[in-house]
């Protein structure tokens, strides 16, 4: 066991996999010599060499297009997109190629790629360093999408993603790289080292893709969240003084429907929280699923607490960010209604 923040946990996952499997390669913009703008790949090129860990041209479409080709050859490419906001130039290679290859070739070819991308706001990055595009990828059949909320899950899910024979979108909520930010930006950030989830095995282990975790058991209301919002929801539950069951989805596709349905059937109430814009965000799918499977158990309307349907405004980050107050207010409404 070691104590790691999320950056160290991600670095450790890559280190372990580069060491175990010669077919794992790691690359992206500023990923090689420099070790990544968030330092997630620091030291790996020195340890494994320039042909296993390297820098790339600034062309997200080229990074993932070549990654797919490497995957077809038999490698397990792990590509970093410097910010999730910059994944769109690679959208066609992801949607039309990585996601479709196994199907269209009748299972002859596939692209076992892992795409790492820091996502989310709260770091004054403005509208092009703060986005949460995960919802879009859950609409693309053939892609898996995961988002960890702590160091232990980050390492275990990343290893599982790299070992997965299907393409996996691995989103990293950059706001919690160093500590479990709960939305109280006016308070000092607690480092991960103060929390149990920072105890991470040094070696190889997996967190299964498709399984949610109960971040806080509760009886009154089910709170569905992932990434940074898990910590915001835990704070909100405490502040609203409701016995909320906070479910950390961890994997958006495949989704752990059983965990969700079991909880909502128990609580009869549900609040869904994400940082992404509301309309057609992943919260919509969650709301639809809950309503389809728990209709007769619901005692109040399902609520969505999300980022607004605007770009992420630089100066008004904290007006945009769905903080504990907004979540707490929703919890109270749901308990009453």
């Amino acid at each position, binding site marked *: 066991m070691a104590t790691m923040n999320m950056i160290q946990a991600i670095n450790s996952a890559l280190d372990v996999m580069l060491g175990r499997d010669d077919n794992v390669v790691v690359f992206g913009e500023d990923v090689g010599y420099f070790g990544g703008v968030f330092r997630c790949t620091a030291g790996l090129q020195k340890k494994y060499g320039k042909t296993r860990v390297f820098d790339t041209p600034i062309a997200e*479409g*080229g990074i993932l297009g070549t990654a797919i080709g490497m995957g077809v050859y038999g490698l397990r490419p792990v590509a970093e997109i410097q910010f999730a906001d910059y994944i769109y130039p690679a959208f066609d290679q992801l949607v039309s190629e990585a996601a*479709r290859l196994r*199907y269209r070739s*009748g299972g002859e070819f596939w692209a076992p790629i892992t795409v790492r991308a820091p996502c989310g706001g709260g770091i004054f990055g403005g509208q092009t360093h703060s986005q949460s595009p995960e919802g879009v990828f859950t609409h693309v059949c053939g892609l898996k999408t995961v988002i960890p909320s702590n160091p232990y899950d980050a390492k275990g899910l990343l290893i599982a993603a790299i070992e997965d024979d299907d393409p996996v979108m691995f989103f990293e909520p950059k706001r919690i790289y160093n500590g479990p930010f709960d939305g109280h930006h006016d308070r000092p950030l607690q480092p991960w080292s103060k929390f149990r989830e920072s105890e991470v095995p040094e070696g190889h282990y997996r967190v299964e893709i498709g399984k949610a975790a109960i971040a806080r058991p509760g009886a009154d209301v089910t709170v569905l969240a992932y990434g940074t919002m898990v910590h915001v929801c835990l704070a909100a539950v405490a502040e609203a003084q409701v016995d909320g069951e906070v479910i950390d989805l961890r994997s958006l*596709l495949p989704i752990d429907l059983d965990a969700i349905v079991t909880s909502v059937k128990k609580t009869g109430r549900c609040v869904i929280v994400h940082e992404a814009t509301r309309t057609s965000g992943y919260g919509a799918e969650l709301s639809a699923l809950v309503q389809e499977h728990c209709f007769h158990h619901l005692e109040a309307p399902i609520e969505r607490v999300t980022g607004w349907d605007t770009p992420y405004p630089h100066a008004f980050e904290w007006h945009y960010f769905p903080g504990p107050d907004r979540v707490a207010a929703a919890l109270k409404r749901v308990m009453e209604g």
Partner: protein
Amino acid sequence: MARKKPTPQAAPGATQKLRLHVPEPSARPGEEPDFSHIRVPPAGALPRPDIAAAESSLRGYADGLIRVLDEDQRAVGEWDPQLDAETLRRGLRAMMLTRAYDDRMLRIQRQGKTSFYMKSTGEEAVAVAQAFALDPDDMLFPSYRQQGLLIARGHSLVDMMCQVYNNTRDRLKGRQLPIMYSVREKGFFSISGNLGTQFPQAVGWAMASAMKGDTRIAASWVGEGTTAEADFHHALTFASVYQAPVILNVVNNQYAISSFQGFAGGEHATFAARAIGYGIPGLRVDGNDFLAVYAVTRWAAARARANHGPTLIELFTYRAAAHSTSDDPSAYRPQEESARWPLGDPVERLQQHLIGLGQWSEAQQQALARELDEQVKADLKEAERYGTLATAPASPKTMFEDVFKEMPPHLIKQRQEMGY
């Protein structure tokens, strides 16, 4: 390059109104076909450089046109690959088989036995000569117009027909539009309906081969129209930066559906010249000259195998048939244009070459044509025993498989909803 009809211009100096130039082909339906803008240099004129030659010394090849077969279809010059007659006959056979296959499949589509087809008529030398020039285990990332690669590699026509029919023996399980083949054991990558995506994938495959100290190289094909897509630029950039062992082919058949190659930039430069800006050798070759295509591809392959990096080849040819069964070229180009193509027909040219060598005859030619037509008919009969799209396609049972390696719960549920 296509003749550029320049936009009229005012006297230099005077501040003048700006004007938009919109490309215009040399002839439209009803007009006389006009290929006067195409310069056809004599065969054998260009020397064959060393495979280690620096790109800066090769720039002339981007504007030139490498040709081996002269007017009398004799092989001349340094690029003559000196192939033995047996190999030439096999090449002729593969090109003729490709053409016979195309003709037959067009017919069955017209008969309503399948939904769609695309011919490669007039471009057979591209796929067949390049398949001959590459090693059998080199990896191919084709577009939809290189069926000749599969045929040259000896793949079963029946298997190809079963895909076109989406029948019970379709290895793609009825999922793909006809001709979107995927044949792993022949090193033939799954064809995508999205133009150009295979280009950077081929570069990535080649990079992986280099990382692993392998000896296999990759080759990929796009049409000249597709060079405008981002994937083309990404492929050249990554191939240049990592000096990937890959051959990037641009098949310039003059058209992209209805758009002549001027709309891809062909009025102002050759497509081979695109390579120059990346420090990659760009070679332009007579795409209807089997020997020239073979020789240039061998050169590029040897260069890649010796770690001298990637090559871009522009194969200068003409799309003699319609774009696809959904297209009617008479709406946008002169009917007789195809017959006037200055570089002739690849099958006839190789045939004449062999006859000139005394290694072939009209009689053999006709016999072979009959034989191949019979073979295609027989294969078709067998393929139809496994059904056609119109009659008994593959079973929908499998339609939820292969979205993922293991079927996740939501797809199992949906399959049940569908009743399987």
